[in-house]
């Protein structure tokens, strides 16, 4: 290595040092430290002991944890719904007509507002005497009021709806970016071959959006498994355990009951699950379809 390059190496590391230091402390350290922590009974009150795999055996016998895992998996059901709706929205706002940019911005506003505000609005709208019940009853869809967020059979699905409503604009913009990258002459060619609007979407748009679909599916799967804010603000896991998701349960165990060791073990299990699901998404996405991209 010559002198110039050595000096360049030194400068490079000097530039990166502060950023890398923060990453080491707040990104790499949590990844590593969670593992030894999960093998202890670390809490604030008692002395810390090494407990081996006890936390993990306990986790798989912990009824509430298993329920929370199941609820998180149910939450993943919103992923395909979000993809389909946001692709349709992206196609709609990709129309070249006056004022369409205004609509794009309007659909994006739920994304930029805080979940605290969004949760508050929906908790009012969905209340017993709220607007949603009123409108549904006026339309003849419901015969009596439903307490959407305090009924075990509906609460989780209502939360999923709120998550979806807030996220649609985000995915719409990602898909819109994808749509705008598709060359117009591809559509032209397909149209010359006699393809109608539906066939254009199925045979041209969807295959060419493939990388975007993969990316969006991945981030929404991760988002769904880790869902926290809306659940914590609106139901705290209740009624009963009907909306207890794994992130909420880990938070309760860790930062509310200060069971750091046990909570870390639960976190590791969830991390492995998320990793496995991501691999699955990659596999599914590679299988079948047109690999023209």
């Amino acid at each position, binding site marked *: 290595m010559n002198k110039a*390059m050595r000096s*360049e*190496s030194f*400068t*490079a*590391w000097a*530039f990166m040092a*502060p*950023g*890398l230091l*923060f*990453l080491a402390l*707040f*990104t790499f*350290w*949590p990844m590593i*430290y*969670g593992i030894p*922590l999960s093998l202890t009974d670390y809490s604030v009150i008692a002395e810390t002991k090494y407990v081996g795999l006890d936390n993990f055996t306990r986790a798989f016998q912990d009824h509430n944890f298993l329920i929370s895992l199941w609820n998180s998996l149910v939450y993943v059901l919103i992923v395909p719904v979000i993809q389909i709706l946001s692709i349709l*929205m992206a196609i*709609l*706002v990709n129309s070249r*007509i006056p004022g369409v940019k205004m*609509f*794009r911005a*309007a*659909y*994006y*506003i739920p994304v*930029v*507002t*805080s979940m*605290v*505000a*969004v949760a*508050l*609005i*929906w908790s*009012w*709208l969905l*209340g017993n*005497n709220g*607007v949603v019940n*009123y409108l549904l009853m006026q339309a003849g869809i419901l015969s009596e009021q439903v307490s959407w967020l305090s009924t075990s059979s509906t609460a989780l699905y209502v939360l999923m709806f709120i998550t979806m409503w807030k996220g*649609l604009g985000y995915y719409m*913009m*990602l898909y819109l*970016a*994808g749509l705008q990258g598709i060359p117009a002459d591809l559509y032209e060619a397909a149209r010359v071959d006699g393809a109608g609007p539906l066939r254009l979407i199925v045979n041209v748009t969807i295959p060419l959006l493939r990388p975007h679909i993969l990316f969006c599916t991945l981030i929404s799967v991760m988002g769904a498994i*880790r869902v*926290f804010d809306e659940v914590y603000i609106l139901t705290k896991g209740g009624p009963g355990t009907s909306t207890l998701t*794994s*992130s909420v349960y880990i938070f309760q165990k*860790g*930062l509310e009951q200060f069971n750091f060791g046990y909570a*870390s073990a639960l976190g*590791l299990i969830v*991390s492995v699950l998320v*990793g496995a699901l*991501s691999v699955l998404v990659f596999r599914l996405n590679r299988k079948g379809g047109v690999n023209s991209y």
Partner: protein
Amino acid sequence: MAKGQRYFIIYLLLILLALFMMGPFLWLLSVSLMPGRNVFASPPAILPTFIGFDNYVQVWEFMEFPRYIWNTVVITLLGVVFNILLSSLTAYPLATFRFKGRNLVFTLLISTMIIPSATAMIVHYLTIQSLHLGNTFLGVVLPAAVSVFNIFLMRQTFLGVPADIRDSGKMDGASELRIFLQLVMPLVKPGIAVIGLLEVMAFWNNFLWPIVVLEDPQKYPLAAALTYLNGQFSYNFGWIAAGTMISVLPIIIVFLFTQKYYMEGIAGAIKG
């Protein structure tokens, strides 16, 4: 299909969708403008029948809004400055320098995107406590002071800067730091703007971590204060609606004025 007919259908769909996405906010606005209105009255008030600003005036005084706005602004500014500085400094060598260990840094950065960490918040809490930063704004900001996403986003921007800029600076005998600050940074303003916007929104809306770190509710930012105050004034719909409007309006205004940059940043997420 005739052009007019097509336009009609598209606009109809656009407007229906806008009602679905914007309706809840407009409804909140109407509740906030009707002092004394009960949101659960039957039939529910959907459109405002009268307008008054009492809710805003009262909530502003009773909830000490200026204090919470100040807290939010300080936290957001700190977060934005940290993110811009640290991600630029880290990304610049990755884009332009040839140095030993470059691939190692890349591998490490990418690994953080693949391996999810569900326990991060717990370890952050322990770290912040051991640094004696509990109950401080720095404790709120530091865990999110830099992100791998932002580093990649800045690197992408630096790659667009011509290499001869740095060479010509060297020719004039300028130090690497001076070249970076005076010649390169002015050229990557769009990238800085994107990170600035994304982080303004992230820090402004963050509520959970501040509640975990800050023991003193007087130090809460707006989003956290709202959850706290909802419990105290849950019967006063007008106040809560007005308070919520005050907390979301700044971010909506910032977004509307900067959406071009913002959208580019979001779209860049896929490439990054």
